[in-house]
């Protein structure tokens, strides 16, 4: 569904993405993991067209997305830190996005109810806590029933209850055959959601594997343990 071909991106002298080649298919739930500053968010932002790659191409349903915008109709994006105009209220933000999208499809307002956002419609964005802002971001990402969901650190800052609601919602959407892309540091949270894993380091893709395959080859049951085993092996190989 989404194909990245030889993506390179430099911020000044810093090479953030280096020859990234990836393929994401519908129906998968893919976790993008790696240390801080390894280029996860830049990768996501280039899929969204917010960061323009220096070279390479990104295909969405076999069409290049560079300099296009219509394809974003099919993407729901939840940013790592949602930044919204301070003086607008939750209700106004949601109404504004609806107005901008002008979508005639049925809206998915499950999360508005689940997070009880409709009860604080007139709260201004600047008065919200980080967690509530995340709830608004999540709601907006799911609102238009997009085929692709891109979630940047979705559960960071959410309380256990809210993060459980969000996880259930993600699983539900995955079962509908949507492509879901998640970045996260909390490997333990990912266990029952994801089908594939991508590990990035210093702007390069280290590996991209199926979860079952990964667990089998390492003989672990938990993703976090499997990953740390692989990393230990790698550093061991480098030492010798």
């Amino acid at each position, binding site marked *: 569904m989404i194909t990245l071909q030889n993506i390179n991106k430099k911020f000044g002298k810093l090479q953030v993405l280096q020859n990234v080649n990836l393929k994401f298919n519908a129906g998968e739930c893919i976790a993008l993991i790696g240390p801080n500053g390894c280029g996860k968010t830049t990768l996501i932002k280039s899929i969204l*067209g917010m960061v323009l790659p220096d070279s390479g191409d990104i295909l969405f349903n076999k069409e290049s997305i560079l300099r296009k915008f219509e394809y974003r109709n099919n993407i729901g994006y939840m940013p790592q830190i949602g930044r919204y*105009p301070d003086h607008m209220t939750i209700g106004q933000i949601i109404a504004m996005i609806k107005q*901008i999208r002008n979508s005639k499809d049925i809206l998915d307002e499950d999360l508005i109810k689940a997070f009880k956002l409709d009860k604080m419609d007139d709260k201004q964005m600047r008065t919200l806590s980080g967690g509530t802002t995340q709830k608004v971001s999540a709601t907006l990402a799911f609102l238009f029933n997009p085929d692709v969901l891109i979630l940047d650190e979705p559960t960071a800052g959410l309380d256990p209850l809210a993060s459980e609601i969000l996880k259930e919602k993600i699983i539900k959407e995955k079962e509908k055959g949507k492509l879901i892309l998640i970045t996260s540091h909390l490997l333990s949270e990912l266990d029952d959601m994801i089908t594939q894993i991508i590990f990035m380091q210093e702007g390069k893709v280290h590996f991209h594997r199926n979860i079952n395959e990964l667990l089998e080859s390492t003989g672990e049951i938990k993703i976090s343990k499997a990953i740390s085993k692989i990393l230990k092996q790698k550093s061991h190989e480098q030492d010798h």
Partner: protein
Amino acid sequence: MNRIIKIVLLDILKNKIVLSYTFVLALLSWGSFGLEDNSAKGLLTILNVILFTVPLVSILFSTIYLYNSSEFIELLLSQPIRRKKIWISLFAGLSIAMVLAFLLGAGIPLVINAPDASGVMMLLSGCLISAVFVSLAFLSCILTRDKAKGIGVAIMFWMYFAILFDALVLFLLFQFAEYPIEEAMVGVTALSPIDLARIQILLHLDQSAMMGYTGAIFKDFFGTTIGLIISFFLLILWIAIPFFISVRKFNKKDL
């Protein structure tokens, strides 16, 4: 009307700074007409006030507004909207708001007290000058990511056009006083939108007689219909070129 322009415009019109700007313009305009006994003198007073405050408020307010909308821009970018459209809508919203403020504040007293060619000229130039400085604000905003630097650049633009440019022209005039530079001066004027507006209005007030030989040359050039069209065309170029550069940069910007 475009949905984003509507959102931006409504947001700006709610802003208290724009309201007080309108109020101050109205106060200054009504005051100048009330203090002077004939409308030509009143117009001259307003001219100086307008050529000083309108650019300053337009460029500063727009620059700060743009920096404060960075969140809004980011939010819009993840939606299916063309990049260019976001930038153009912001420009349209800000320009319409500044022009509206000018028309409500200074336009009404102008139409009532000086309903002649010079009044209309003032109205037109005021609107164009507002848009020119909104456009320069977009340029200074895209030149740097840092808010303080961007506002600094905006203030430099204003200082240059409102104060430094005139000083430079005076300097040139004195340095080359022995040479026939009057015609060249006409060309130099095109380099400053504020001077273009000022000369147009002065010519319509028949004050050019007081400006000596240079004034006569100006009258010869800017006083004709072609001169009028050219000077308005130049003002529109002053809107289009900075904004066009900023659109191109915005299209390539990483957010």
